């Protein structure tokens, strides 16, 4: 292992040692303050993000990991988002006193899982990454088990995630059975004439589809979104999904383009039903977190519209959409977290009445992120949809693009409904402590990012170009 390899590994090592350090601090005889623990976690995450700058041009590490432009973009992105999650968690009322070394180390491990997933060059590695991401989440969903629905959410997610990962693994095993290798580069050279190969990739698609909450693998999403503490909802509604998505795009577009081609009709169908069912389900939903869960199902549908195009524009659009989607959802769930009541989240929409007026920054972020989710310029959401639907049109999927457009129009209704609630004249009388400084910082940064990405999309599109 050469020095350059080691340098490429530094972010991963930092996350693992960061988790360990936190745990060690926890077992010492003296109780370390929560603030200090948080700071340590933040330092490791930021350091990890910074060290990705040291990465050299695309290189493979031990045939398992690859540090190319995609991982160089998403690794620091995930780490920074995880920083935001940590900051949200520390001031999240329902978890007060529970954000200690276990919580923080699990978040660090989950982040490690994500960055392993997006940079893996081998299916075994991807599988482990997926699991390092998933297992901390089982516990994090049920964090502070006495919360309403926490355990139910944890059990549901653990069992269903196990169920879906069985499909994923079955796909991996069948790929191995078909070709005798698990290395993605070697797989790229295999012809599709091996019947098992597309079948196996379809099974992997089922497993990833579960993580992405595509219809019909979506049913867990609203329940778990509702059950989890909002910062954790933010985690797996944004970056965890983005990680799975990036892995899928890497697998299909970069490594197995020939499989991608034959898989297009399936993606087409998944995109269609995800959009339609997601938006329909969101239409009258009263619980904000569930509503956002359904909206994110629809958004994954839009992303699949781009992927189903099967061209390079679609690939770029999907990557762009992944980033935009992450930021938008991080923003809305950060708002939900910021407005939480002492013991649980606000549930029904009417509990949020007028809060946008009372807390201007919160309202601003919610407004920006919802407009972005609705796809209005000049936000990133607009550009993402433009690129995605543009890709579909370029590929001749006019029908799909039209349906996506209609869906976007309908989705407008419920996004507008939320904004109207936030800025309604009546104000809810359910009071809670105002959002903390750290939360405000996260909110502002996220909304600026969402706007900035919409105005300067080239910055992102440039950086995902393959050298």
């Amino acid at each position, binding site marked *: 292992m050469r020095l350059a390899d080691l340098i490429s590994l530094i972010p991963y090592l930092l996350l693992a040692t960061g988790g360990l350090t936190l745990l060690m601090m926890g077992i010492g005889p003296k109780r370390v303050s929560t603030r200090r623990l948080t700071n340590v976690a933040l330092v490791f995450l930021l350091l990890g993000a910074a060290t990705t700058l040291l990465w050299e041009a695309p290189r493979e590490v031990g045939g398992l990991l690859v540090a190319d432009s995609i991982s160089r973009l998403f690794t620091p992105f995930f780490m920074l988002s995880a920083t935001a999650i940590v900051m949200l968690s520390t001031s999240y009322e329902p978890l007060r006193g529970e954000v200690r070394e276990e919580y923080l180390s699990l978040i660090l491990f989950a982040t490690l899982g994500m960055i392993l997933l997006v940079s893996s060059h081998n299916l075994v590695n991807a599988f482990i990454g997926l699991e390092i991401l998933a297992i901390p989440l089982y516990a994090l969903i049920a964090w502070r088990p006495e919360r309403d629905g926490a355990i139910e959410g944890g059990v549901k997610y653990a069992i269903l995630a196990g169920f879906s990962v069985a499909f994923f693994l079955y796909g991996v095993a069948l790929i191995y059975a078909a070709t005798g290798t698990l290395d993605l580069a070697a797989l790229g050279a295999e012809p599709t004439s091996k019947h098992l190969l597309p*079948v196996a990739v379809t099974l992997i698609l089922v497993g990833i589809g579960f993580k992405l909450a595509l219809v019909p693998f979506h049913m867990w999403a609203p329940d778990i979104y509702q059950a989890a503490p909002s910062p954790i909802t933010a985690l797996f509604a944004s970056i965890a999904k983005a990680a799975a998505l990036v892995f899928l795009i890497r697998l299909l577009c970069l490594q197995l383009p020939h499989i991608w081609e034959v898989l297009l009709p399936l993606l087409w169908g998944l995109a269609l039903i995800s959009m339609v069912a997601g938006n329909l389900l969101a239409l009258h*939903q009263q619980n904000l977190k569930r509503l956002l869960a359904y909206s994110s199902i629809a958004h994954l549908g839009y992303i699949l519209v781009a992927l189903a195009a099967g061209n*390079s524009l679609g690939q*770029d*659009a999907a990557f762009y959409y992944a980033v935009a989607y992450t930021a938008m959802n991080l923003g809305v769930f950060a708002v939900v977290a910021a407005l939480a009541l002492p013991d649980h989240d606000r549930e029904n929409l009417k509990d949020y009445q007028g809060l946008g007026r009372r807390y201007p920054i919160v309202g601003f972020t919610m407004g920006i992120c919802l407009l972005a989710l609705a796809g209005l310029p000049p936000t990133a959401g607009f550009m993402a949809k433009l690129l995605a639907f543009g890709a579909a049109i370029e590929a001749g999927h006019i029908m799909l693009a039209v349906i996506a457009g209609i869906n976007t129009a309908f989705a407008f209704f419920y996004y507008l409904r939320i904004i109207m609630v936030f800025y309604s004249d009546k104000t809810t009388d359910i009071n809670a402590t105002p959002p903390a400084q750290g939360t405000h910082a996260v909110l502002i940064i996220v909304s600026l990012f969402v706007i900035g990405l919409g105005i300067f999309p080239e910055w992102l599109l440039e950086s995902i170009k393959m050298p």
Partner: protein
Amino acid sequence: MSQWLWLIPGAPLLGALVIALLGGLLRREYFAMAANCAAAAAFAAVLLAWFTGAASQPLQQTLYTWIAVGDWRLAIGFTLDRLALVMVSIVSGVGLLIHLYSAASMAEETDQRRYYFFLNLFLAGMLILVLADNLLLLYLGWELVGLCSYALIGFWYREPLPSNAGRKAFIVTRVGDTALALGIFLLFSQFHELSLSALLTHATTQWEPGSQLATLVAMLILGGAVGKSAQLPLQVWLPDAMAGPSPVSALIHAATMVTAGVYLIARTHPLFELAPSVQWLVAAIGALTIVYGASSALAQTDFKRVLAYSTISQIGYMFLALGCGAYALALFHLTTHAFFKALLFLSAGAVIRTGGDEHDMHNLGRLGNHPPLARWTFLAGAASLAGLPFVTAGFYSKDAILATAWTAPAGPLLWMFAAVGALLTAVYIFRAYLLVFHGPGPRTSTISLPPLMAWPLLILALLSLVSGFVELPEGWPGPHLWSTWLEDELGLAAFPSLTITYTLQAIAVLLPLAGIGLAMLLIHREQTGQSLPAADFLRTGWGFDAFYHAALVRPYHALARGLWRTVDTLVIEGALTRITTGFLAFAAFCRKSVEHRVLEVGIASLVMALQIGYSRLSATQNGFLSRYALMISAGATFLLGYWLW
């Protein structure tokens, strides 16, 4: 200068940002100063461009590449050719004067920050629109000015009238904007290109003249232009927009924004040349609008609404010129119109302001006591608008359009409309002048205007009188600077043979004089209590508002309600059958016709389908773990089934 091009829209944009972000730190008197500085900087940049060769050589600047995906890239860039140079000069020059005027006239308003923010933002948007070298940026500016217009019309949003007017303007122009957006999409899907110059080259080389695509695209662009420029049939928003402050009316709804449609057509004129039928339609719309606006202005009692209908009518002249292929002449009239219409609005604003916010012309006349300066400058503007021969700019620009209209297909007919319009123009504007300034009230006022209001009026008055001399009528000895300078970009206008031209010019000389006489007659009749025949019809703008209300607004309301409420409410509300009378019978017929029923049932069943879809799907989310797993396996089975099949 090329690398400083961004400064032209950048300066007001920066001003707007400073006012928005640092507004909390500034005392309220400084908002006007900041906004004026920004406008002055933009104007200075334009002057600099004139002196550094923009008048001879187009300038270009690419700011940054916005998107580059696949084989397609979109750069944000500005182009300053002669057409754009004319526009930016007007926008920034007149804009600056109106900013200065605002500083005095709006000084007592409490919400200075919002006002100047939107005023500066509007200026930036308009300059972006004009300078944009691609359609997307143009559309951005287009929407930005629409937004600012909406915000400024509704500046006094606590009163119902302005805020409703703002909403109306927004919604009506949105119809046009949608058409424009569709046109842009269509162009993009055809050529995978948004750069204006490249698009026009592609279109002229690849499309046959008269081809369906070219016609469709031209129609869509025309739709956008019609909405923004308040031409038939989307003119209804402009009279109501007068509910905003007078400087706003002067800047946005007379001098600049409403001419954006004219600019757009001039900018994309090769497309219209590929679609001769649409081009003729432009001329026809223009001709009809001229008569429509002028006749409606005839019966108004509200001072500013006269000017609003007059604007509609005058932009009709520009459309007529565009439709006849005389783009340079359209631009010429645009320029002179910007001067005299801004002048009219500003002096009318001064009169209204000193008259205690009185809008009714009869009352203003009874009140008398108007600042003399406002009176003389109004007279100058009115003379120019009426086109009093030889000494006013309006004469030269309108006369040329009248002459060139003769050459178009069905030219004599178009000319007739334009000539009738010219006559009516003189009638209504002098009616307004006589009513307000020669009413029964005292005429001994010595009220002087503050210098910040006086100077813009004087400058504009001067320009309204002399700016016509750059282009003397066809067949006259003397300079034709304007058309020759723009010839490379916009081509030359066609004129009928010299004898006809001279005849037409002679008629054009007589028309305004006849108009003044008619105006005096009219005043006399009005003062003796006889009103104009069909005055109500004219005053309501030929009843367009009522028509739209019955044919569009009411069904739309029902539709919106239906979407929000449940199905049965829709069915009850959606009956929608209140029969209107008079000439609105046509609308009633439409509403009762088969199509409407079909639409209604369609909407109802759509809502029903959505409801059912929601409740069916929502019922599956029953929290039941095994059911969730079942769905996953079912999904997997279906996906695998694809490979079997």
